[in-house]
């Protein structure tokens, strides 16, 4: 496996897993974000 290929799979993991983890953290934050938001 070449260096380019290893870099590509690493990037794929960072992007796929990273975006999923960030989104899960966002979902965990969501209730407090919405609770802080004033209603009209």
């Amino acid at each position, binding site marked *: 496996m*070449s260096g380019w290929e290893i870099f*590509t799979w690493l*990037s794929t993991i*960072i992007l796929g897993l990273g975006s999923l983890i960030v989104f899960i953290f966002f979902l965990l*934050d969501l209730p407090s*974000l919405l609770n*802080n*938001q004033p209603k*009209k």
Partner: protein
Amino acid sequence: MGFIKLVGPISNLDYSIIIIYMMGMVGVGFWFSKRHGDFEDFFLAGRSLTTPLLITTLISTYYGLDVLFGDSQLAFTDGVVAWFGYARPTYAFFLIAAFLLARRLRKENFLSLPDILYRYYGKETRYIGAIASFIYSLPSLSLYAFGMLGEVIMGWPPVIGMAVIGGVGLVYTLTGGFWAVALTDSVQFLVMCLVIALAVPFALDLVGGFDQMIEILPEYYFQTMGDLSIWLVIIYASTGLTILVEPTFYQRIFAAKSYKNVRNALIAGIFIWGSYDWIVTILAMAAKVGVLQGTITVDVDSNAALLTIMVAALPVGALGLFLAGVIATEMSTLDSYCLVAGGNIAYDIYKPAIKPKASDAELIKTTRIGICVSWILGFLIAIAFEQMLGLWVLLASVLISSVMVPILIGLYFPVLRKKMAGTLSSSFGLLSTLILNIYIMIYGTFDPSEETYILSYGNWEILQEYVMYFTVPFSFFGFWLGILIEKNKG
């Protein structure tokens, strides 16, 4: 306008995914339409964005189809230089923004980019900054892209694609404000990142694996600087300068809960930005391999490389997600720019110039009018202009030339915050960039291979991209002229 056609069929399942996605975005907008407090809540989500939300909204806003197709176009024709020469330098600007810019911006509780100019230099500079920011934020490029996507995906005439897909973005931005923009950005972020990551195994499988890429592509495809000249690399790298005065980027810094949230989001974001750019580069190179192998159509246009290989490689359902991801990539850009443009009209022009005691409700209403105005102007420009790249260069140079010098000097040298310096710097920058761009577009010739206007003087050639190298120093000159005038007065 005429665009590429998809080479494969799109199933009903794919269409359903796209429609559900767009309806979901509108639903979020309506859900937030009755949940606003004051103007700060509508425009900056009450300054409550946490790190994960900042990562998602920063990445999805800053990455539009220009990046998706721009990166892939260069990678298709030149290889990995698209990442090393074009994408990588921007990460340095993100680091500068994370460690040098964000702390100062967040500390002073600004509300908009022209607000900075007002506090440092007074209302005249603010108005010029607001005009420059409004012009830059017109969503003409996004709407043009939707015209293209509507034609490619649905077979619609471009005007219908602009109106329908762009209209979805307009509706939820109008109703939901920054809350809707930030929250839809998060979903859009997930869709655009996941589909690009999921596409890698399918695309590599289609062309016979990575080894085939190394074997088939010319050697220079794997040279980090390809065959680009150092000057071209410098020009590509300098496009990252826009980050330092990007209004949507500033808006997210102002909307953050604290400086630490912004810094952490930018540092984490660089890894995701870098991975995203690299994968787009590899997918476009795989498309080139597919063309050379005859796996995909041989007459594929370089800017259609990514779409073409995705249509060829992805199974039913995954293709719908990918196309929704492509729409998401640009939708998250359009909503943010429309909101910034609306805020420029309401907060930076209407309030100080027409009604200083405007209530929050009036400001929100005026912002919504501004959003509509910016969308309509962007729509008209997208229909009228043929050369979108030239338009982007014009819009970017208007913003950079008008506000970069006064904002960066004002942020770091409080002693130089003189009214005349700000006024002359921003007006010199704005006027010179408009005059030079229009002059080159009228008296220059359009070069289809370079995709830009070129003005020739004997052996000298001035590309439209070079305008900023004249106008930013001119804005700098205006600044120092203003300092001298103030000094002589005092």
